[in-house]
């Protein structure tokens, strides 16, 4: 199971990194989504991988799962979900305004200067 989880994190991260380097907003946003999935799984494994044990201390139970990474993952999921929504909105705004979706700086066109320079 360790190999499976580790290779899943690796695949997600490398796919995310590849998409990040595409420098167009849509692939970059998908790439960031993949990266956040990778980091969520990674956080889970930070509390050691366990199967079929409860995350609560009880008298009659010997093994238990670490509950803290689960709480951390929950927080991370909520935050990354919100952030992705924000970046989609801003990227849409930038795309509709300037009619291209490159993330990096493009050579300046004269109409850009007049509109955004306030």
């Amino acid at each position, binding site marked *: 199971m360790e190999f499976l989880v580790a290779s899943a994190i690796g695949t997600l991260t490398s796919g995310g990194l590849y998409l990040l380097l595409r420098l167009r907003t849509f692939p970059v946003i998908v790439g960031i989504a993949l990266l956040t999935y990778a980091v969520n799984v990674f956080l889970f494994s930070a509390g050691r991988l366990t199967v079929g044990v409860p995350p609560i201390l009880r008298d009659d139970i010997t093994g238990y799962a670490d509950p803290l990474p689960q709480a951390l993952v929950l927080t991370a999921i909520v935050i990354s979900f919100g*952030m992705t929504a924000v970046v989609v909105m*801003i990227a849409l705004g930038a795309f509709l305004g300037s009619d291209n979706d490159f993330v990096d700086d493009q050579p300046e066109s004269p109409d850009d200067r007049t509109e*955004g320079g306030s």
Partner: protein
Amino acid sequence: MNHWLIAPVILPALMAPFVVLAARNHISIQRVFSLAGVLALIAVAIGLVIETMDGTVMLYQLGDWAAPFGIVLVGDRLSTMMVLLTSLLAFFVLLYAIASGWDDRGWHFHSLFQFQLMGVMGAFLTGDLFNLFVFFEVLLIASYGLMIHSGGNRRMRAGVQYVLFNLIGSTLFLFALGSIYAETGTLNMADLANRVGLIGAEETVGIRVAAVLLLLVFAIKAALVPLHFWLPSSYAEAPAPVAALFAIMTKVGAYGIIRVYTMIFPPDLEATAGLHDVWLLPAALVSVALGMVGIMAAKTLNRLVAFSVIGSMGMILVSIALFTPASIAAALYYIVHSTLAAATLFLISDLVRTGRGNLDLTTQQPMAGTAMTAVLFFVAAIAMAGLPPLSGFLGKLLVLDAAYDTNLVVWIWATVLIASLVSIVGFARAGSVLFWKAHGVTATDDTRDAMLRERPNVLSYVAVGGLVTLLIGNTVFAGQLHGFTIDTAAQLFAPDPYISTVIDTPGKLSTPQEEY
């Protein structure tokens, strides 16, 4: 337990939704409440600084849960000093935003401003690494909104870059936190400080990776070369008061490095040896050089200021990377100076924009309100470039003095001094183009409308003048302030009272209970 410690977080957190819910359509009511909130923050921050001045470590256990099980807020000299600096900066920036009407050019400026303050204050006060991540996200998500305040194509595009870069930074932060938790089983800073030292010499691989990842995250925030690419565009395109407030955000990264690498991974820890002198110091020197080259090459005033921020962050990180009590004290003094100087310059660039309609460094008609703007620019540029008699000079002197005993003294002195010279030339060029050469230009039909522009109003000058007064105060009271930063550095290099306060203070779960 002193409940005032959580006030700098709670106050803006309550003010922000109140402003949205109760006064959405009334800009004047929003302004009154926002200003009142920031004034109250200053009062609380002064109280906290006085409380911690004698070396007391204040502790606030949320929900009364004992560390390391609960989240704690900790106030020591460093935290409370940064809180006071933030609230003073916020007051003058807010005053300028109101005076210049920037807050009325889009929606929800005041509530985003308050949320931003909440995030910054929380980041300075928290004693828990995951909580630091959460407060980073709070300040970032507010800054995304502020960054694209009032819209425009160029601003939106710069905003996309800014958001994407910071999202990658947040992901890295989570990877770092995951590895730290996997290695130590805790994320409380004081508890970590105890546990990292216990890791055996053969098992340090994981914690070394975590330390490097965490340094990368803070370096992104502090705009250290080569992780600075987000800064020039976003600071230059952001609305001027927002850029001025962002001057404190790069310092959050510097604060993170100081806090984590004095307490959790101290310089004498074998597992992370070489991190600051082999990696951080050269990168910081390159930042100084690159910032100053950027000052020379910039074609607009706001880009020039953005590059001067990179240069001054480089100075701060050079000083931090030496990791001696004297150099940390110098870095803290320089942090105060650089925050105020950068914010002042961003606001002045907006005065120039108001007066002549653009920020291009080309000779044009004299702007409206030349005399006053020129005086303010002159003072702020002297401070930023590090010429005597202002605090930039004193700060650089302290950094150079701290570097004198090290092996790399030649490199540091040469880089800092040459870079200072270049930045003086850069600022002098900008100043002469903007203010002096303008008088030699004869009006043509194209440029005549510049003559008709309105001067910036008096309150704008009051706000910028207030920041300049703080800069001068920073120079006049340099002895006292430097004495305080020396005490702060001493406290940072003797973290035992901090750790024992956090770990030993009783609360829920602090003693094993009967039923388990």
